[in-house]
């Protein structure tokens, strides 16, 4: 479970995130929906403690990353916005490296890698050097690498960005499976269908703030709109409608 309490962050004069508060419970997919530059990535970076909030607090399964950064990171699996691989290493070696950094032993790494290879359908390229991988292959390796330690909490920043239909469906199916296993999944996206397809709860983020939250249906009802896109526009423009 991820608890976010009034976190804020400024870069110089720019207030990127303003008192964002929400809870992402276990057994659920929570989505941060927002346009580019709305503050999604900065919020996520504070949650996975890559950057420190100016104010507010984050709790990962009750642990404050500020006080115990390593302990908090063990409970998190993160697919960040930048997800480059080591091109001279094979996909398997990329995954193994992160497993070792998590302090896992070789047997655990091996069995976990096997199950990730199966779930993400990576059999064809797992032992190839990652140089020249397609976008879809790269994201799969990056997800496997981030989740090699089978964390309870999964954070993904725009996970299906730039992926084709098949890869997107593959990632979605994987996330659903992880949810069935009781995981807490938090992801960000600017794509309506994406959010609509996988999330249980949606947080609409705009201008560094959470403007609205609820299931898709609740958002329809709150705004009096019939689909998510119209609801989204209604929320971020304060009901003034289109542009």
């Amino acid at each position: 479970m991820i608890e976010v309490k009034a976190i804020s962050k400024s870069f110089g004069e720019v207030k990127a995130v303003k008192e964002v508060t929400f809870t992402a419970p276990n057994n659920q997919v929570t989505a941060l929906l927002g346009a580019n530059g709305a503050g999604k990535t900065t919020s996520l970076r504070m949650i996975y403690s890559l950057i420190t909030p100016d104010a507010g607090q984050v709790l990962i399964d009750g642990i404050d990353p500020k006080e115990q950064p390593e302990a908090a990171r063990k409970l998190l699996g993160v697919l960040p916005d930048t997800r480059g691989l080591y091109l001279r290493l094979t996909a398997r070696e990329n995954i193994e490296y992160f497993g070792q950094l998590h302090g896992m032993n070789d047997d655990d790494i091996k069995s976990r890698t096997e199950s990730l290879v199966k779930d993400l359908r990576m059999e064809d390229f797992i032992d190839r050097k990652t140089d020249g991988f397609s976008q879809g292959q790269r994201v799969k390796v990056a997800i496997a690498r981030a989740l090699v330690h089978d964390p309870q909490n999964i954070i993904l920043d725009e996970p299906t960005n730039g992926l084709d239909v098949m890869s997107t469906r593959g990632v979605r199916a994987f996330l659903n499976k992880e949810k069935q296993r009781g995981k807490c999944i938090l992801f960000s996206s600017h794509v309506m269908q994406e959010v609509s397809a996988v999330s249980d709860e949606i947080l609409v983020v705009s201008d560094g703030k959470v403007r609205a939250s609820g299931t898709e249906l609740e958002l329809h009802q709150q705004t009096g709109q019939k689909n998510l896109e119209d609801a989204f526009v209604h929320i971020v423009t304060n009901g003034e409608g289109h542009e």
Partner: protein
Amino acid sequence: MNKQILTVTKKEIKDNVRDKKSLMSSIFMGAVFMPILFAVMINFIFNMQKDKAESQLEIAISGSENAQSFMNFVKTKDVKIKPFSGDPKRAIENKDEEAVVVIPDNFSENFSKGTPAKIEVYYDATAKGATNVTQGRIKSLINEYSQTIGMTRLQLRGISPILLRAVVVEDHDVSTAQSKGAQILMMLPYALILGLFMGSMYLAIDTMAGEKERNSLESLLLNPIKRSHLLTGKLLATISFGLMTMVITLITFKLVMPFMPLEKMGVTIDLGLKNLSILALVLAPLAFLAASLQTIVATFSKSFKEAQTYVGILIIVPMIPSMALMLMPVKEKLWMMAIPVLSQNLIINQIMRGEQVATISIIVTILGSLFIGVLLALAAIKLYNRESLLFSD
């Protein structure tokens, strides 16, 4: 040692050993190519000078008809005469001739009167290499002729030529054979230290700026490992490449040593086990220092290219003391051994001159370089802890 640190070190070494380009630039260029180039250069310079000194002297002479007796003298000296006409200055400038001798029209007139007769020698004193040998030989030939004639003239007048020699200079060159030849080998310290800098350069760039360029840094930082441990692991990999290059450089030098005409140059460099160990001992802490310095510079760079430029400039650092010592040799003092790079230069020079390196010098060198190295490593860790590491625009 922390297991995570070793994990990082092992990964970086594995990753970079697979990169042919990195191996080429560090190991091959620094450790193998440099010593061989060095040996080839020394052979070339030595042979060029030897050839000129021993080969038959060839003189371009204009106006030889003006000085019959001089020409007869020259012929007895096994010198090849090459008639010359035209502008001697231009011939030198165009590098057509190394030196031109011009005998003016009034030579025989002055010669018969007993007043100093002039012979002009044209050459370029700033020209490198063999030209100086040639013009020196021409001048000594003319001097010899002048003295022969002068002495004959005095004897004809019944005066002992000895009277002319009021003072005689007697040369006492106390430099040993070793220190003479060492002048040519002045570049050796630079070659050794450069190899070491080149060895770690590529890894410093790849582990720091490369991580940013590949966009893998953020994911890496999200692992439950302290940043100081992460950087230590990377630094160890970088240092190990520097050390490896240093050792290979020393071995290559040892191997190419027999192919340098050192004995003929009057030099014997003792690269026995003892001296090799001393060299390795004093150079090792420098690998630590070089890696830290390069890592710091690479931390500031966003891309591989940018880092390559800045870290490349760092190679000038070991050049400064080497060049300074070549131009103004100093007597080594103990405090100098505390200054990294300078101390290694001094000790390498001592070994080349065949001097004993004092144990205290070695200890001060190691401690001095290690101290600065640790300071730099701490600075690198501090920089790596910055939040802005990811967004250094």
